[in-house]
């Protein structure tokens, strides 16, 4: 559905995107993660035909974004990073005009606007100019504006930034519902639990390059698990450190009576750990092996390129 190879784009001195490969199969959600300035918006703008790539090619539903722009635009919906709604118009008029631009016809455009406003809980404000709406309401309006023509491919640039938990949930369930009916979604986000929840596939980029990609689980495996051993006193700390190193632990850290280390994912089970420490005569107060959160994965991956 979305295929990109070697996409690159510079702005003068800045190389915003460097050789990005991306493939999003039909009906799946891909989340693009990365710190500010990583090139996420640049990637989305290229795929939505708003920006010409310097290098590489991209295809949406088989149509080339550089040479078959009109075909591509017929199949995509875009909710950009900055709310793209006309402040002087009411919410309803915004959707109505966009419906007309999608050739829905006046009656159908009215009906579609009403349906979307109701579904996303914006009916109460629908007939007030958007100028007087809150930021989160505008964001929601912007998002539903990209759904008007029910496009098979949807680009959402930070769709939930600035939304309250309730609205965020609503957007999450809308995205989930859309993918169930076969829509392909490429979204960017700063919220990792959101990516964890929505995305079938994640791609982490930094400084315009891919630094990791895979399912959320695969990414977590990438940085391994954290082993933690809590001792009753500080007597056996150095022994515990040696024991963890012997088990293949990296990044050994000590904090009061707490010794921790990173091990390869799946390389160590809890019973093995306890048995090993017991054999060495180390007394335990508490111990555990914890998988990393996506936040930790993210920090770990992007830190190395700083």
């Amino acid at each position, binding site marked *: 559905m979305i295929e990109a190879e070697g996409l690159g784009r510079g702005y003068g001195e800045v190389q915003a995107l460097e050789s990005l490969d991306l493939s999003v199969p039909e009906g799946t959600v891909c989340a693009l993660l990365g710190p500010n300035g990583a090139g996420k918006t640049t990637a989305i*703008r290229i795929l*939505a*035909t*708003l*920006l*010409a790539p310097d290098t590489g090619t991209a295809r949406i539903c088989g149509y080339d974004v550089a040479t078959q722009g*009109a075909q591509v*635009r*017929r199949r*995509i919906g*875009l909710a*950009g*990073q*900055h*709310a*793209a*709604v*006309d402040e*002087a*118009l009411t919410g309803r*008029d915004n959707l109505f*005009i*966009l419906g*007309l*631009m*999608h050739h829905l016809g006046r009656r159908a455009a009215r009906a579609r606007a009403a349906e979307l406003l109701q579904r996303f809980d914006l009916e109460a404000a629908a007939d007030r*100019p958007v100028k007087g709406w809150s930021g989160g309401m505008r964001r929601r309006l*912007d998002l539903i*504006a*990209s759904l008007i*023509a029910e496009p098979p491919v949807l680009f959402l640039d930070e769709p939930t930034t600035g939304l309250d938990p309730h609205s965020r949930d609503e957007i999450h369930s809308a995205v989930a519902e859309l993918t169930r009916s076969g829509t392909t979604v490429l979204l960017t986000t700063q919220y990792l639990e959101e990516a964890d929840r929505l995305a079938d596939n994640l791609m982490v980029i930094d400084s315009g390059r891919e630094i990791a990609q895979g399912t959320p689980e695969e990414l977590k495996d990438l940085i391994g698990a954290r082993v933690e051993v809590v001792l009753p006193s500080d007597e056996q700390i150095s022994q515990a450190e040696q024991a963890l190193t012997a088990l293949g632990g990296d990044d050994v850290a000590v904090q009061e009576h707490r010794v921790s280390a990173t091990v390869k994912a799946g390389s160590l089970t809890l019973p093995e750990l306890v048995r090993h420490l017991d054999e060495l005569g180390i007394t335990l107060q508490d111990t555990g092996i914890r998988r990393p959160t996506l936040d930790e994965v993210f920090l770990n991956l992007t830190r190395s390129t700083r």
Partner: protein
Amino acid sequence: MRDALPAAERLLTSVIRNPAFILVLVTAPIVLVLIFGFIFGGAIALPGESSGGQTYREFLLPGLLVMTASNIVPSMVSAAKENHSGLTDRFRSLPISRAAVPAGSALATLVYGVISFSIMMICGLVVGWRIRGSLADTLLAMLILLLFQFSASWIGMYLGYLFDDEETAGQAAILAIPPGMVSNVFVPTESMPAWLGTIAAWNPLSSVAAALRELFGNPSAPTGGAWPLENPVTASLIWTLGLLAVFVPLCTLRYARAGR
């Protein structure tokens, strides 16, 4: 092209909700007629007239209509302002012709034009301007005026997309004044130095103003033998269609390419 209609409807709907805009749209023509008519009217006499006043006001009104039609500043500033907005990005990602949004703005400008020209003409009738031409001529005059305004808004939008920044476009607005001055809009070109007179004669504003004067049957300025002033109606049509032929594609290309 039918995609331009919703784009125009968007602008008109937002204007309806903006009382300040409507107030300016309605009062500006009145103020212009009064100020120019009575300030310049008292001081300027047409060649062959002993004093200004009445005759000058009759000469002036077509000039003011042309002046208003040629005001490219609003199109320029709003094009520069919207060029990088999220809204324009959304329009660019829609399956509509790349000319649709600029064309919609030009159409909306045309609607404002019809309103301000009508008010200006009513005001003119009150202070002594008269239509002495036939109905067909009057309608032709209106058509030329609207065509001219339509082409002017494409020039304005092109420059707006080119400057790409609201501040720059605002500063550049001052440059929109000289074309009105170096023309027969306010004064006959005769009194200008020869070289300036030639430029003024070939200024599209002069052709259109002369065409309106001829079609409305208002006093006109001596032509000095210049072809565009001898044949103002033909010259105006050539000018406006020529400008459209150049600036519609230029502007559309700029719009489609912005930010790429």
